[in-house]
């Protein structure tokens, strides 16, 4: 009897499986393929100057919109809509020549007026771009002819061209771009089904030399990491842009149908002290706390074999990277001594404002147990992302906090004494300013290296670890970006075989 039941169950399972496989039969490879991309970052709106967020960069940057320059996945800045540019001797005047024959998706030809208006969208008072202040050096933009744009700066800025890589060149006539798009990229915006999908279709009239290698892409959005991974396991999506769930990786590791790629990440997990308030205004105390936390153990417990230890804000891969993991390395005895030097030898209590989403609560608990060993008591205060922005970022009403800092090249924030963490060191501020005014990239790198070393030695913050940047894809896929630099995800070279 029992055996009969098992046979029936097995037979029905087989039958069901057979039915399930019969459904899909559309041609899905090569240039006619649609690439299904899975992500947890749905755009908030479609405008990167109106608070579209990380999701809008991921979906539209380089795909629908292009800049004068492109930040490649490898981290280099290359010409895109500007085919050539010259810089005046004093470093204050940039002259850009626009590529020929560029049209927007609406059919309108690109002119220098569009470029001027596009830059001004980012620098406008109502711009919500987090990078607005980086472009505040612009004092004037002129358009001598249709294909020439001249930008005058108030002081030299070696990163100016880099910063232009995230300024979308949009059609001035397009109006409000929060729900529509009109760019020059290899894809046109298809349809945005809020809460579910955003589709891109190949722009067959693309101006560039090489058109997209697939027919289009559909970004599928998930709020739940398990749902995202299940979608990949059932082939509903082909690739996950950035895997945020360490536990899920095991199911892909042993499966030849999937490829796990660990790229170069720029996302740093910080234990950020409020350097304005006691006892964290004393470098010895910050160093003591940094030395008392075993970052290697924390990283392993969260990410297993993935991720990288960093001793400062600069990740490997940046021209001004230096291995500083030995500065304030894990050493409980040294930490106790430093604590005494800082005048709090008997220990102290502080509140750690901890964002309520992974991995912050886990890391906070770990920090609490580590610091107990040197007599420091941590009171964990769990807050939402919204509270973090109000309480910590704007009001600076905190003792210490945790935060993931995703941006590329953000070590320069230590040069701003008004930044939320309140690190104030005239030498560092000066070095950052000098680096920005540097004549060559080698000079810039040398100066930022010095600044980076000082903040590490003073433990301006404790850089717990660098997140891994993991792209998991179906093994039939190739040509996808690995590094997710500035949250970009170019889909135009992806090929499904």
């Amino acid at each position, binding site marked *: 009897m029992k055996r009969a039941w098992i046979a029936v169950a097995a037979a029905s399972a087989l039958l069901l499986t057979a039915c399930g496989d019969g459904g899909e039969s559309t041609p899905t490879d090569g240039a006619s393929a649609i690439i299904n991309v899975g992500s947890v970052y749905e755009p908030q709106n479609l405008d990167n100057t109106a608070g579209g967020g990380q999701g809008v960069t991921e979906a539209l940057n380089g795909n629908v919109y292009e800049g004068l320059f492109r930040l490649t996945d490898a981290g280099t800045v290359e010409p895109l809509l500007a085919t050539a540019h010259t810089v005046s001797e004093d470093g204050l005047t940039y002259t850009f020549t626009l590529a020929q024959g560029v049209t927007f998706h609406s059919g309108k030809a690109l002119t220098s007026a569009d470029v001027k208006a596009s830059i001004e969208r980012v620098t406008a008072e109502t711009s919500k771009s987090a990078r607005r202040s980086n472009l505040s050096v612009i004092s004037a933009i002129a358009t001598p002819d249709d294909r020439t744009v001249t930008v005058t700066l108030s002081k030299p800025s070696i990163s100016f061209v880099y910063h232009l890589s995230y300024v979308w060149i949009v059609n001035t006539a397009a109006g409000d771009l*929060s729900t529509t798009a009109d760019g020059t990229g290899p894809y046109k915006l298809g349809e945005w089904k809020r809460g579910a999908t955003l*589709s891109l279709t190949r722009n067959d009239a693309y101006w560039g030399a090489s058109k997209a290698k697939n027919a289009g892409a559909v970004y599928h959005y998930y*709020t*739940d990491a398990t749902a995202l991974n299940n979608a990949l396991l*059932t082939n509903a999506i082909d690739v996950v842009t950035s895997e945020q769930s360490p536990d899920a990786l095991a199911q892909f590791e042993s499966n030849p149908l999937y490829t796990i790629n660990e790229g170069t990440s720029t996302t740093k997990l910080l234990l950020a002290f409020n350097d304005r308030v006691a006892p964290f205004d004393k470098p010895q105390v910050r160093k003591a706390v940094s030395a008392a936390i075993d970052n290697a153990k924390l990283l392993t417990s969260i990410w297993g074999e993935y991720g990288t230890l960093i001793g400062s804000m600069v990740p490997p891969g940046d021209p001004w990277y230096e291995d500083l993991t030995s500065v304030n390395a894990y050493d409980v005895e040294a930490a106790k001594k430093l604590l005494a030097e800082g005048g709090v030898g008997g220990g102290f209590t502080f509140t750690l404002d901890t964002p309520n989403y992974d991995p912050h609560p886990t890391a906070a608990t770990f920090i609490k147990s580590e610091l107990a060993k040197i007599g420091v008591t941590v009171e964990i205060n769990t807050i939402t992302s919204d509270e973090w922005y109000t309480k910590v970022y*704007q009001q600076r009403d905190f003792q210490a906090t945790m935060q993931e800092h995703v941006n590329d090249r953000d070590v320069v924030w230590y040069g701003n004494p008004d930044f939320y963490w309140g690190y104030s060191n005239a030498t560092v501020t000066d070095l950052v300013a000098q680096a920005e005014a540097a004549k060559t990239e080698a000079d810039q790198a040398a100066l930022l290296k010095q600044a980076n070393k000082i903040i590490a030695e003073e433990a301006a913050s404790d850089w717990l670890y660098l997140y891994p940047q993991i792209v998991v894809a179906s093994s039939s896929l190739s040509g996808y970006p690995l590094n997710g630099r500035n949250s970009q995800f170019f889909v135009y070279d992806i090929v499904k075989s």
Partner: protein
Amino acid sequence: MVRYLIRRTALLLASLALAGVALFVLLRLLPGDPVNALLSVGATDAQIAAARRELGTDAPLATQFLAWLGDVATFDLGSSLISRLPVGPEIAARLPVTVPLTLAGFVLAVLIAVPVGFLAAYRADRWDGPLLNGVAQLGLAVPAFWVGLLLVSVFALNLRVLPAGGFPPAGWSDPAASVEALTLPVITIALVMSASLIRYVRAATLDVLGSDFLRTARALGSSLPAAMWRHGLRNAAAPVIAVLAIELATTFLGAVVIESVFALPGLGSMLIRAISQRDYPVIQGVMLVSTFAVLAVGFLGDLAQRVADPRLLRGHR
């Protein structure tokens, strides 16, 4: 009955108005700022202030409230502070997911719960009655998301007969894919919901089985099934309908979790996102629509109860 209808409709509208006002006030009392969702690390104080001016969240509460009242009075739910899209059409776009999901889950739950609950009562003194009741009790303790994950694991990941989540971009113009997408979520809702319903049906049936009128009917020569059909069903129905109305409302609200597990673009996922962004017009819009749905279901439930058991109308003559 007409007087009852008028009174009940007035009550419905008053509750809705009260809920709307309470919602507005409570939302503003909660700490939070929609500007935070639009800005990221790197934004300057000047940018934050400019954004607040632009969204109008720096205006006095009374001004904001009057503006909102004016909008609602003209059936305009306003526009999202984050996506800038009008809230009404956004909600309408989500209903084709949430409404079928809730209704189908509810109907399936009733189809499971009524016979099972009846059997559990009818055979209460045998081995299978208590067993059914025991399984239902166990079901109550299982969280909905866990049932969802289990079903995904079996039918999507292993057997590969149904999708693990998502909703076809074409929506209901692709009916087969839409039904496939909703199958597991509907079963999840039905299973979880039937667990509590079974117990109500069982209790109501037990009451009727032990009642004097049923004993009388049987003494007059009716068989038990005939007596149950003629006298028992109506009597058991009234309390079950009351519970059903509440359960339907709970399902509607509980769909929030299910939508997240199955990545469905419904009202629930819209609400969760809006709350985390403090997108007041969207929260208010979704809550107003769902409050209306819950109140309307309660209203219909009360009516149905009075049709099933006219004795309840007596108090209102």
